[in-house]
C-alpha cells in the first residue's frame, strides 16, 4: 500500500455553494503534504474532507473506503485551527487524552503511556509546563500542547490546520522538522500553512488551492516557480532558491525589491 489517500472525487459544499471540488489525486505514504492558497481558497474544507469530517469524499484512506459509515477511527490525529474548551486539565493530563484511542474509556494509563506523553512534551518543549493548567497557557503554548496531544496519538496519518499559528520562529521550525522526521518513519502528514517559506523549505509536496480548485501541485520548486502562484494570491511573489546546499528557499513578496532579487536568483 504505497498511498495514504486515494481520492476519486471530493466535494465540500455549504448552502448551495461549492467550497472545494477536486478528484483523481493520491497522497503517497510517508510524505509531508502542505496545502497553500489565499484566504477562503478551501484549504481547511479540503483538510476536513480528507479527515471525513465534512463534505463527500469518494476514495480510500490507507486502503479503507472513506465517506461510508465505517469512518476510520484512530487512523488519523487532528489539530484544529482553534480548539475550544476551557477544561481544568493540566498539560500532562491533556496530552494523555491523546492516548484515548489506545486506552479506550476505562483503562488507566500505564508507564508506557506516561513515557509517550513525556516524549511528546519534550519534543514540543512543554516539559516545564507539565503541571500547569491548559487554560492558563499562552496562545503559542496552547498550540504546542494541541500538537503534542496529536503526536501522542501515534496515528499513521496526521492532519494539522494552520499548526504554525501563534508559534514563534523557533517553534515553527522545530515543528516542521519534527513533522519531517515523522514522515521518515512512514507517517503521512498533511497540513495547511500560510507561511510560504516554511512550506517551501519543509514540504515534500505542495498543493496550491484557489477558489476551491486545485491550481497547481508538485514539489516545492515546481509550484514555487510556476507563474500561477502569484496569480492565485493576486500579489507579486517570487521564490528565491538559496545559493548553497541546505540554504533553502526565501520568499520575496515586496513588489519593489522583488524584481531585483529575482534577477539574481
Amino acid at each position, binding site marked *: 500500500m504505497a498511498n495514504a489517500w486515494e481520492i476519486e472525487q471530493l466535494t465540500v459544499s455549504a448552502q448551495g455553494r461549492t467550497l472545494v471540488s477536486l478528484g483523481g489525486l493520491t497522497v503517497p505514504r510517508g510524505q509531508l503534504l502542505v496545502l497553500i492558497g489565499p484566504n477562503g481558497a478551501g484549504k481547511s474544507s479540503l483538510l476536513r474532507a480528507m479527515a471525513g469530517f465534512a463534505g463527500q469524499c469518494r476514495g480510500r484512506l490507507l486502503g479503507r473506503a472513506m465517506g461510508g459509515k465505517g469512518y476510520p*477511527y484512530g487512523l488519523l490525529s487532528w489539530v484544529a485551527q482553534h480548539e475550544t*474548551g*476551557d477544561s481544568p486539565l*493540566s498539560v500532562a*493530563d491533556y496530552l494523555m487524552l491523546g492516548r484515548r484511542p489506545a486506552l479506550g474509556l*476505562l483503562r488507566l494509563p500505564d508507564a508506557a503511556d506516561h513515557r509517550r506523553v513525556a516524549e511528546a512534551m519534550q519534543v514540543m518543549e512543554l516539559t516545564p509546563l507539565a503541571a500547569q493548567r491548559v487554560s492558563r497557557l499562552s496562545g503559542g503554548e496552547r498550540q504546542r500542547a494541541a500538537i503534542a496531544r496529536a503526536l501522542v*496519538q501515534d496515528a499513521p496519518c496526521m492532519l494539522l490546520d494552520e499548526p504554525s499559528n501563534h508559534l514563534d520562529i523557533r517553534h515553527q521550525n522545530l515543528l516542521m522538522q519534527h513533522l519531517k522526521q515523522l514522515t521518515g518513519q512512514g507517517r503521512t502528514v498533511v497540513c495547511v500553512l500560510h507561511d510560504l517559506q516554511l512550506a517551501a523549505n519543509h514540504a515534500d509536496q505542495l498543493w496550491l488551492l484557489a477558489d476551491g480548485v486545485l491550481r497547481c501541485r508538485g514539489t516545492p520548486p515546481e509550484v514555487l516557480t510556476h507563474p500561477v502562484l502569484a496569480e492565485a494570491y493576486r500579489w507579486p511573489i517570487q521564490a528565491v532558491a538559496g545559493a548553497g546546499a541546505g540554504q533553502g528557499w526565501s520568499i520575496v513578496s515586496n513588489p519593489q525589491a522583488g524584481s531585483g532579487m529575482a534577477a539574481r536568483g
Partner: protein
Amino acid sequence: MSATIVLQRRSGGLFPRVWRWLCLPPLAALLIWLILGLGGGQWAVPDWHDPLVSRLRWPRILNALLVGSALSLAGAGLQALFRNPLADPGLLGTSAGSALGVVLVMALGGLGVSVPLAAFVGGLSVTLLILLLNQLLRGGQAGLLMIGVVIAACCGALVSLLLFLSDDLTLRGASNWLAGSLAESRFADHQYVWPVMLAGAVLMLGLGRDLDCLLLGDEVARSMGVKVGRTRVLAAMAAAMLTGGAVTLSGLIGFIGMMVPNAVALCHQGSRRQLMLHASWVGALALLLIDTLGREAVYPVDLPAGVVAAFAGPPCFLWLFWRLQKGGAGG
C-alpha cells in the same frame, strides 16, 4: 519565591495529601452527627431510638446528601457536554418535565399517580423527547442546547397555565414542591429512584474520559476515536437519570448543580472524572449545610432548601471567584 517554598512545605511536609484525604471521611461523619442532633434551635446528643432522629432527620440528611451529590455530578458532566461552565442540570428539560408532571398530577387530582412518580416519569420523558427531537433534526451540541431550552420553556408555560387554572390549595402545594424542599423526606417513599440514580452516576463517571475529549470540539474528539453522537446521548441520559432522581426526592433545587462543579474546577486541576467525583462529595455536603441552614436559621419556619440555595449560592461563588482572580493575578 520564599512564599512558594513555604507553601510547598505546608502542603508537602506538615500536611501531606494523603492525610487530607484521610481526614475527610471522619470530618464528614462528624458533620452529619452534629446535624443529626440539631433541632428546634438547640443541640442534643442524637438518640438513635428517638423517632424524631430515625424517621425525620436521618432520611432528610441522607436525601440532602444524595440530591446534592447527584445534581453536582450531573452538572459537572453537562458542563463538559455543552462546553459551557454555566450549564445546569435543568438545561436538558429534566427539571421542567418533572415540574410539569407534578403540577399535572396535583391539578388534575391524583390520576392514581404519586407525586414523586409523576416527577420521575415527567423528567425522564421530557429529556427523552428532547434527545429524540435532536436526533431527528441532527442538531448536534448546539441543537441539543436550543431544543432543551425551547422544550423547557414550553413545559414552563404549561405549568404556569395549569397553576393559573387551579385552586388555591393546589397552588400552595405545587409552589411548595417547586421551591425544592427536603422537609418531607422519608425512607420508604421513593426507593425506585436510588438504583436509577446510581446507574446514572456509574454511566456518567464511565464516560469521563470521552467528556474530556468532547470538550475540545467534535472533530478533535472524533479523531481520538470518540463516538460523538453516542457519547452525547449517553451523557444526557445519565444526567437525566441523576437529575430526575434528585428532583423526585426534593423538588426543584437550582444553583447547586451549576455552582459546585465550577467551585471544584477552580480549586482542583484534573480530569473530568476526578472533577465529577469531587463535585459529588462537595455537592452532597454543600446541600446538607444549606438544608440545615434553612431548617434552623429562622426556626420555627422551615425554609425550602431550593430557596436557601438560591440565596446562599451566588455570594459563595462570587467570593470564590474573587479569591482565585486575586490569587491568579498575584502569582
